[in-house]
């Protein structure tokens, strides 16, 4: 007589471990009063230039730090260190995205209460990072004007996983005949209601509005935390 196989119900998320670690990080960020912002985009969209400019602008008024993910090099951390903010590189090896545990390990030795803003630059990749929550307050997805207006339609999942879209390299928009209206329409199609900012890290256009957005977000999350206490 052959026994029938036993069917058991499980109902468990495959990325449960990452989700649990991400929740713990989010709680830690909230308790420490630090706003954690992650950046995702394709390689070459200007994440590091944008982050360098952001750190430089914020450094005089706020306590800022950054974690940067890369497959193999420390080039980004070296560039970002010019802003004088504390920067740590996460070298992922062959892994094409950051996971919550990598962020947690990289934070070792940093007291988050000493920070106002923590930036987390993901590996340049529009596919894999979308599956992993890093515990961030806000996820920014960058789209450079040189990439084409249809990127959101080609990679709807990553746009859907993000909170704010940033159109970068706006100084090149005219040269590449970037159709901003179309790009915005495509973003709204895959993520209705998404906030869109447009800027150039090179010329500084749009950077003050971005900084103001960050400051307002920080004030809102602090007053929300005060209400909870």
């Amino acid at each position, binding site marked *: 007589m052959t026994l029938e*196989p036993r069917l058991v119900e499980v*109902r468990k998320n495959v990325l449960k471990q990452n989700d649990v670690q991400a929740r713990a990080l989010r709680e830690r960020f909230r308790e420490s009063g630090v706003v954690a912002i992650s950046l995702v985009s394709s390689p070459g969209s200007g994440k590091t230039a944008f982050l360098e400019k952001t750190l430089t602008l914020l450094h005089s008024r706020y306590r800022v730090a950054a974690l940067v993910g890369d497959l193999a090099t420390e080039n980004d951390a070296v560039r970002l260190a010019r802003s004088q903010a504390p920067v740590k590189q996460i070298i992922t090896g062959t892994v094409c995205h950051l996971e919550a545990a990598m962020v947690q390990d990289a934070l070792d030795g940093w007291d988050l209460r000493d920070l106002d803003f923590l930036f987390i630059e993901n590996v340049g990749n529009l596919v894999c990072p979308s599956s992993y929550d890093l515990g961030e307050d806000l996820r920014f997805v960058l789209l450079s004007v040189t990439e084409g207006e249809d990127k959101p339609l080609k990679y709807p999942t990553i746009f859907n*996983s993000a909170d704010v879209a940033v159109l970068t390299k706006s100084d090149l928009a005219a040269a590449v005949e970037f159709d901003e209206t179309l790009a915005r329409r495509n973003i709204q199609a895959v993520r209705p209601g998404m906030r869109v900012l447009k800027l150039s890290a090179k010329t500084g256009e749009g950077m003050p509005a971005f900084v103001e957005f960050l400051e307002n977000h920080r004030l809102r999350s602090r007053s929300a935390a005060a209400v909870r206490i």
Partner: protein
Amino acid sequence: MHELSIALSIVDLACEEADSHGAPGVDVVYLKLGPLSGVVKEALLFSYEIACQQTPLEGSKLLIEEVPIVVNCPVCKERRSVRSIQSLCCAECGAPTPEILEGRELMVTALELRR
């Protein structure tokens, strides 16, 4: 391509469950997959075979149920499907639908355990 690391997580999860039921192995893993999970079915199936090698899941099958995106339509005030992943609008009335109820699933729902 992160499907291999996802497949390894599925194998780990299934091994733990099999262990807790005192089963020597698993014949079938049932998985629910949403279009917004960021995981490609074909790549996952390919990676799964590799991830199972030399584990109690070797030779097992991964059965993937692809589930649709479900939103809460702000106009119809109902659960609705969308036009497509490139157009998150209510399939009935066309209103933009920011509130996503389902579609991010990456979940092991059941296992057939080996006796």
